[in-house]
Each structure stands twice: as structure tokens, then as C-alpha cells.
């Protein structure tokens, strides 16, 4: 465990080097939040609620979604494909560590970096600049736990796509396709309540909604209460266990086809 924590610390330090990039990231986020503000204002156009959500609820959902998005993007798929192409993967395989945990803890370091440099500033901007009032409710208490589970789920998808590179040796197309599927179907860009009923019912059975829809709902509608949130948390936990297991099984298969040219 100690060695994994050292990895986490190391990648956090590496993240620190790119400080000035964060300024642009925050600037980009503020612009994005402003544009979505105008967009949703025109969509609501004085209407009290749409699909059972008020403007404030939808806006908190969408704006926080953009900050959480940066947090949950692990870039593990890009990292793995780079390591495979350059042959670096061989140096991990000979170490007495578990590849999945090794990559998870390295990416967690970057994640903590973006949490402190991007997500928290965005959260503060949302409250102090956009004057959005987040109602107090039990959802806010559960949100941090839900976010951790969401991170693990997002990691599983990225790790899975990274493992696919063992077969394809290319990443751009796979990663872009995965990003689109995850962002659209998880309700990262628009609350799931806006989807047509049939699609909503299908999406609730898929793991994607547990990544964005679940944690964002806890902040957008925090007063829904324990009886709503605990089952949601349970569903998240179920998917985390299932997907961790599945990616481990897939790793056992994928490692057999790995070819390393040089190093």
C-alpha cells in the first residue's frame, strides 16, 4: 500500500509542474459555464420547470458537470497506449505490483491535482460569481462518496479502452468514441430527465448514468432524501465491483497478445 501511495504523491507533484495550464483550464471552464448559462436561459425562457427541473437545478447540474468532467477524465487510456507503443509497459510488468492498481494510483494523483486546481475553484465561482444558491440537503453529504465511486467507474472505462490498445495499437479513434458514448449516455451534458422516456428507461440500466447523473443529481436536487440516494449509491457500488472484475478478466486475456518491440 505504501508504494502505491508514493505513486500517488509522485504524479501529484508532476501535475504541479503544469500550473499555468490550469489557468487556461479555469478560464475555459468559466467561459463554458457562461455559455451554458445563456443557452439554458434561452431554453427555459421564463418557464418555471422543464421535465420537473427548475432553471437553477438544471444549471447547477450542467455547470458542475463541466467541472466534474475535468476531474473524471483520467487519461489512463492515452497513458496506457503511449506506454504500449513505446514499450514502457515492459518495465511495469517486471515490477512486483498490480498493473491496474499501479495505473489507478498514478491517475489519482493527477485527479487530486485537478480537484484542487480546477474543480474547487469552479465550485467557488459557481457560488460567488454566478450567485447560484445550492440548497442544503442530505445529497451534499453523500456527494463526495458518490464522486469517488464515479471516478472509479470512469477509470474502468478508460482502463478498458487502454487495454484494447493491446489489440489495435491505436488510440485516438477508440478514445474519442468512448468519450462520446460516456458523455452523452451518462447525462454529463444534459440531465437525463430531458431524454425521451424510452431512452431514459434504457439508460437507467446501463453503467454510464452512475458516472455523471448520480453525483450531479445529489448536488442539483440535494433534498430528495436518503431513500432516493442510498439506492443510487448502491447501484454505483454494484457497477464499480462489476467493472473492476470485468476489466481484470479482460486484462488476463489482453496480456497474452501483447507484443513489445524494443523498449
Amino acid at each position, binding site marked *: 500500500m505504501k508504494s502505491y501511495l508514493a505513486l500517488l504523491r509522485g504524479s501529484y507533484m508532476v501535475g504541479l509542474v503544469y500550473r499555468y*495550464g490550469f489557468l487556461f483550464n479555469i478560464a475555459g471552464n468559466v467561459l463554458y459555464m457562461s455559455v451554458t448559462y445563456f443557452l439554458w436561459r434561452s431554453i427555459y425562457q421564463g418557464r418555471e420547470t422543464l421535465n420537473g427541473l427548475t432553471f437553477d437545478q438544471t444549471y447547477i447540474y450542467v455547470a458542475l458537470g463541466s467541472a466534474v468532467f475535468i476531474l473524471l477524465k483520467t487519461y489512463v487510456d492515452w497513458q496506457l497506449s503511449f506506454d504500449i507503443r513505446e514499450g514502457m509497459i515492459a518495465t511495469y510488468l517486471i515490477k512486483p505490483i498490480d498493473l491496474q492498481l499501479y495505473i489507478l494510483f498514478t491517475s489519482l494523483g493527477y485527479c487530486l491535482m485537478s480537484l484542487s486546481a480546477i474543480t474547487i475553484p469552479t465550485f467557488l465561482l459557481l457560488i460567488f460569481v454566478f450567485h447560484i444558491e445550492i440548497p442544503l440537503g442530505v445529497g451534499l453529504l453523500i456527494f463526495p462518496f458518490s464522486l469517488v465511486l464515479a471516478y472509479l467507474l470512469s477509470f474502468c472505462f478508460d482502463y478498458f479502452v487502454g487495454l484494447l490498445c493491446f489489440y489495435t495499437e491505436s488510440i485516438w479513434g477508440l478514445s474519442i468514441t468512448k468519450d462520446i458514448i460516456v458523455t452523452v449516455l451518462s447525462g454529463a451534458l444534459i440531465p437525463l430527465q430531458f431524454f425521451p422516456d424510452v431512452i431514459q428507461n434504457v439508460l437507467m440500466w446501463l453503467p454510464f448514468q452512475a458516472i455523471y447523473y448520480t453525483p450531479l443529481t445529489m448536488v442539483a436536487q440535494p433534498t430528495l432524501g436518503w431513500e432516493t440516494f442510498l439506492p443510487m449509491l448502491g447501484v454505483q457500488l454494484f457497477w464499480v465491483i462489476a467493472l473492476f472484475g470485468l476489466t481484470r478478466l479482460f486484462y488476463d486475456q489482453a496480456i497474452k497478445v501483447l507484443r513489445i518491440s524494443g523498449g
Partner: protein
Amino acid sequence: MHSFLDYIRLYFIIETQYIKARMQYRADFIISSFGMFFSSLATLGIFWIIFNSIPELAGWTFMQLVFIYGFYMIAISPMQILFDHIWQIRFHVQQGTFLKYYFRPLNMMFYYMSEMFDIKGLTQLAAGVAILIYASIQLGIDWTLLRIALLLLTLFSASLVQISITLMAGCAAFWVLDSYPVLGLAWKLREFAPYPMNIFDGAFRFTFTFIIPLGFVAFYPSQLFLQPQDVSPLVYFSPLVGIGLFALTYWVWTLGVNSYTGTGS
């Protein structure tokens, strides 16, 4: 000096070789085209979902936004296909490999950009053309020869606007070394181009019209076809905006190229 025709011939020779090399990775090409296709339709999908709950957005119907979106996809394609190498400029500048572009009797921007031809961008272009045709049939737009000429002219200008905004961001590499965050920001902004500009308030609309003229990538020129009877006079400037902006970008590029001193190793 080479003539314009020489450059075109040269470009074909270079890209033929490039495409031959890329085609070795056929699976990559197919998967990437697939990804490109999906990612370019994502925003349209979001519009579709939104329009399930509301009849119109800031005075625009869904089909009108589809038209603007098709226009946008075509307008951003030349940047994607021909100028994609701008993303690599930070590596070349940081590692000093950019020096090689000084040593050929060719226009440097031409030489640099010719090293990459993004084949998957053609999927985006094709999807854009299909969407534009579909929307204009649904909207009953009457395509006279004059209108078609106007469409080609405005598309040319709009693509120059998109190219200029991105290249300008990439040129930051000459001064700040890592231009990735700047480019990333320009890339994020690009997503706002197909939005109706009239949803924005004063300061934002001013910015997207005059400072970072995203409105000229799709929304303003599309108005010439969607509601030709009442467009603001601004729209008629759109062909000039593209050419002027590209000239400015070329000037910034030249400044950057001239100020670059290599890495010393």
C-alpha cells in the same frame, strides 16, 4: 519563387505519399473515422434532446439549427483536414525540430502544414454535406445558381475564420512554449460556434462577433440562407472577415517564425 500551381502539384505529391504511409494502419483509420463521425454528431444529438421539451430556441426551429450545424461541420473541416499539424507545433518548438522547416525553399506555413493530412476529417466533411442537404430539403430552400455561389463563398470564408482562430492559438507556442492549453481553449470555444448568437447578452455577443469571431464560423453566414429578408448588414461582411483574419494570422505566424531561436542543441 514557386507559382501557386506548383504548390498545388507539390501538395498532391506530398499527400499521396503521406496517405500511402497512413494506410498501413487501416484499422486505426476505420476506428478514427468512426469516432470522428460520432463526435461530430454529439452536439446535434444534444440539440435534438433539448427540442423534445421546447418548440423553439431563441426564435429558431430545430431544422434551422440542423442547417446551421451542417454549415458548421463543413466550415470546420478544412482546418481539421489541412491544418491538423498545428497540434504538434509545441513538440517541434520545444525539441528544436522546428528548425528543419527553415531549410527548404518553400513557404514555411505550407511546408509545415503539408506534413499532415487528416483523412478522418473527410468523414466530418461528408457528414456535414449530408446534414446540410437534408436540412435544406426539409426547410424548402430554393437553390438557385446564385445561392450556391453564395454558399461556396461563405463556406470558404467561414473555414478561414476557423483556421485563423486555431492557428492563432497554436502560434502561442513561439512565445510560451507550451501552446496546448491555449489550443485546448480555442478548441473548446469552437463547440459554441453552431449556437444561435442571439442567446448571448451584450458582452458575450460582442466578443463572439468582434474579438473571437466564432459567430462567423456558422451562425451569421447561415442567416443568408435561413432568413435572407432580414439579416443584419454585418452578415454581408462575412467573406471579408475570413480573408482579413487569415491575413492577420499569417502575419502573427511570420512574427513567431522570425522570433524563434531554436533550442541551442
